[in-house]
């Protein structure tokens, strides 16, 4: 068992959170950017705020940094209200989306900037800057100006600069947005490494769900200023609390239907006239007759040429489209009623040996625990 799974202070009622949002609301004129948020973030967490642009995640972070003040409610850091503390006296540092490196200063002076403001003795500053340069592997570039280094290097300078003061809390605003995909993936692991090495609490804002899933210990999904779900990445993915979360994170089929039968934790959902009811396990009690949504990930649906014998759920249809992604293929299967269900299979064989092609009749099957039943 890896240490990450053991690290779960949010499950421990005795653990004191580092940051507490208490009924925090932020309005800009008529617009409510952050709507009555309750949230605890714990020490050493790598916490991701995830949501589409305009969902309030950046405002939430800027309130932590001190650039915005809550309209209502309080934010506690280490149990103390931080509202009256200006940004330059907060034990938080922020890495800006644009990196905001000082163009007139060298890499070294950029990293030393915050330390110099504390008027620490020069040898101490120099030692700390060297340590930071080593951490982000930029010793060779210490005397360069920001415009003389690459985007990835700039990103690391920005990270080193905000880590130099050893903040209690590090805020990262879309830190990898400006990097290309490959570099972004590498940097995600670097970020996690650095977070573990320094033991700093990280709060990251991102609209990239893969990034949030990769780096974070917990993810908060936001929509229209509200927290929709706060949970570990695997829970967010496997047990989304609503169709919004299920749809936002990864690929999903959402089938709307009506509960027709319930037996313990098992429910039956009628969802299309000419299709058999879906048998699924539900975590919440749902009254028969109420509307329900069945959300299932494409990779949990098996695709076969004949009717699967053992699967409790099976439907048949025609292959409408095939999205070939190299490692996997996504099949869009059209049922007789016109509904389209996405199913994924791993490409263990090479393309020539592919089993199904356009217009083939196929069967789709899934177990009763493969999807989740949602109320909304």
């Amino acid at each position: 068992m890896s240490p990450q799974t053991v690290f779960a202070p949010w499950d421990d009622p005795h653990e004191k959170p580092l940051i507490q949002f208490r009924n925090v609301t932020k309005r800009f004129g008529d617009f409510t950017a952050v709507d009555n948020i309750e949230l605890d973030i714990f020490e050493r967490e790598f916490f991701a705020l995830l949501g589409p642009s305009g969902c309030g995640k950046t405002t939430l972070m800027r309130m932590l940094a001190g650039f915005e003040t809550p309209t209502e409610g309080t934010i506690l850091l280490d149990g103390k209200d931080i509202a009256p503390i200006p940004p330059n006296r907060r034990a938080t540092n922020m890495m800006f989306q644009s990196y905001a490196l000082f163009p007139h200063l060298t890499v070294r002076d950029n990293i030393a900037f915050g330390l110099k403001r504390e008027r620490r003795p020069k040898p101490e500053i120099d030692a700390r800057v060297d340590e930071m340069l080593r951490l982000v592997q930029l010793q060779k570039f210490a005397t360069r100006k920001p415009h003389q280094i690459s985007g990835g290097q700039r990103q690391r300078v920005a990270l080193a600069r905000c880590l130099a003061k050893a903040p209690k809390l590090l805020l990262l605003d879309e830190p990898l947005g400006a990097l290309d995909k490959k570099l972004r993936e590498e940097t995600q692991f670097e970020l996690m490494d650095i977070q573990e090495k320094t033991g700093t609490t990280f709060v990251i804002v991102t609209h990239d769900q893969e990034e949030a899933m990769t780096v974070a210990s917990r993810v908060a999904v936001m929509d229209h200023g509200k927290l929709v779900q706060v949970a570990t990445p695997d829970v967010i993915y496997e047990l989304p609390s609503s169709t919004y979360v299920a749809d936002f994170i990864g690929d999903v089929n959402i089938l709307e239907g009506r509960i027709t039968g319930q037996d313990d934790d098992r429910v039956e959902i009628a969802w299309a006239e000419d299709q058999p009811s879906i048998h699924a396990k539900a975590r919440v009690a749902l009254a028969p007759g109420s509307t329900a949504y069945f959300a299932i990930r494409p990779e949990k649906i098996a695709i076969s040429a004949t009717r699967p014998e053992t699967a409790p759920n099976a439907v048949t249809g025609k292959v409408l489209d095939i999205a070939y992604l190299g490692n996997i293929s996504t099949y869009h299967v059209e049922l007789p009623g016109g509904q389209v269900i996405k199913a994924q299979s791993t490409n263990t064989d090479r393309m020539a040996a592919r089993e199904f092609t356009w217009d083939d009749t196929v069967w789709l099957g899934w177990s009763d625990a493969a999807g989740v039943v949602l109320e909304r």
Partner: protein
Amino acid sequence: MRRFVVVAVPYLWLLALFLIPFVIVLKISLSDPAIAIPPYAPTLDLSEGWQGLKDFFAGLDFENFAFLTTDDLYWKAYLSSLRIAFVATLFTLLVGFPIAYGMARAEERWRPMLLMLVILPFWTSFLIRVYSWMGILSSEGYLNQVLLALGVVAEPLTILNTNAAVYVGIVYTYLPFMILPIYATLEKLDMSLLEAAEDLGCSRLSAFWLVTIPLSVPGIVAGCFLVFIPTIGEFVIPSLLGGSETLMIGKVLWEEFFSNRDWPVASAVAVILLLILIVPIILFQRNEQKQREAEG
């Protein structure tokens, strides 16, 4: 061929309107004054062929430049011009920077109007605007009337025909040349840099000193040169607003030319002025280039 034409046009322009007039002025500066039309000798007479050309060049000498060193009026005027230009540039910066800063920090929808207000005075004749300062600054002028009425002063202040009036005139006239380049750099300034500075422990004021000022240096330097360079040779403002104490080379040049009708000496004064101006002009060009490189 087309490319040749495109390049040739500006060069022909420079040749016709800058280089040829300069060569003419240089030639006059090497000539001797004469009571004639034009009032200098020798003049080029090609009817005498090769001999005429030789006589023409033999008639040229550096006498006038030597003369400039014998009378201390000239070097004092040069020095005084440099000093007045320097002080006036400093004042213009002190007035211009806060205006540019305020404009750059104003709401975006106000900015075009504010820019318009800075440029608007150019729509009136420069001469009229300087004359109206005479009406404001004279001892019976509006300024003194207001000060007397408010009881701030008991007797009218003597501002007109002093160096103070010259500074007022220069600052007023050249202010847009200071504001516009500074505004251009401040407007481009990424606000997240100031937030980053604050985040790293700066107060608002120290963020201003450590980030805003260093990053607006190219605009400040450009603005200072744009004010300093034309101010050195300024003639209208010192002659209209200045007094007998105001010694500026532009005025000396005018007097040599029109009062003394000594075209050769006046030309020599102009050539030296140009040589003095080359230094700041080169520095200005270098600043512009450095800025372009930093942006590129």
